[in-house]
């Protein structure tokens, strides 16, 4: 039962991810990205990371996706006909990607992974919070400074006459 749920969510995620990349209409791509992000959040729940799943919904779906849709609205005419440009090195790039996928699949399947079956925790919030404020306090502070810098940089860049 758990197996089928996993593969169902995985199929939704991968198919909508392919739709994001292959589609020619930008707005449809953004909507497909919504399904991918929801699928990944579902997989997080499946992997016992409930807090991360919530953060994924808040940050990615609520923040990043809305920003991307704003970007699409500001830089494209919705009804404009989009010309798909052919890349010169398309064959080489495709071969490299297929090679990468096959090579890494072989590596993954040959590696003896540790499959621990621990007890399912009631909630991961307390553990994540403790780690974030004790073991990883310095990265936590550094990344908050980085966010402030990004905020100021984005505001400066998007002014009328920077």
């Amino acid at each position, binding site marked *: 039962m*758990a197996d089928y749920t996993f593969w169902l969510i995985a199929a939704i995620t991968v198919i909508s991810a392919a739709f994001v*990349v292959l589609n020619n209409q930008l707005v449809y791509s953004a909507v497909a990205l919504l399904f991918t992000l929801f699928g990944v959040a579902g997989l997080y729940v499946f992997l016992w990371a409930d807090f991360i799943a919530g953060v994924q919904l808040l940050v*990615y779906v609520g923040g990043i996706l809305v920003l991307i849709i704003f970007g699409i609205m500001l*830089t494209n005419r919705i009804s404009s006909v989009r010309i798909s440009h052919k890349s010169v090195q398309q064959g080489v790039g495709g071969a490299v*990607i297929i090679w990468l*996928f096959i090579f890494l699949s072989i590596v993954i399947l040959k590696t003896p*992974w540790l499959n621990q079956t621990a007890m399912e925790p009631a909630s991961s919030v307390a553990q994540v919070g403790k780690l974030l404020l004790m073991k*990883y306090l310095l990265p936590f502070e550094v990344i908050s400074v980085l966010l402030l810098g990004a905020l100021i940089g*984005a505001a400066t*860049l998007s002014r009328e006459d920077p």
Partner: protein
Amino acid sequence: MIVPLEHVILLSLALFSIGVFGVLFRRNAITIFMSIELMLNAVNLALVGFSRYYDSVDGQVFVFLVMTLAAAEVAVGLAIIIALYRNRQTVNIDEINLLKN
């Protein structure tokens, strides 16, 4: 009954490959942006998988930090794209070649 770790990492690899494909083959800056988000999501998925099967929450903290970075990246990147569109009236990366000549 339990899904083995290999399958989670293979799924993450598939998502990552799709993202690489998008970055290499699409010529629209915003599509490339969404592909980068796909790749970041794939890495996050692998990290959560490791955290689950190695019974340690550290991986989830890493995912948290990566998400913060992704948010900062999107804010600055979209500001750059919009500034670019204001100056050049295009987001097609083939037409943005100011430094080429």
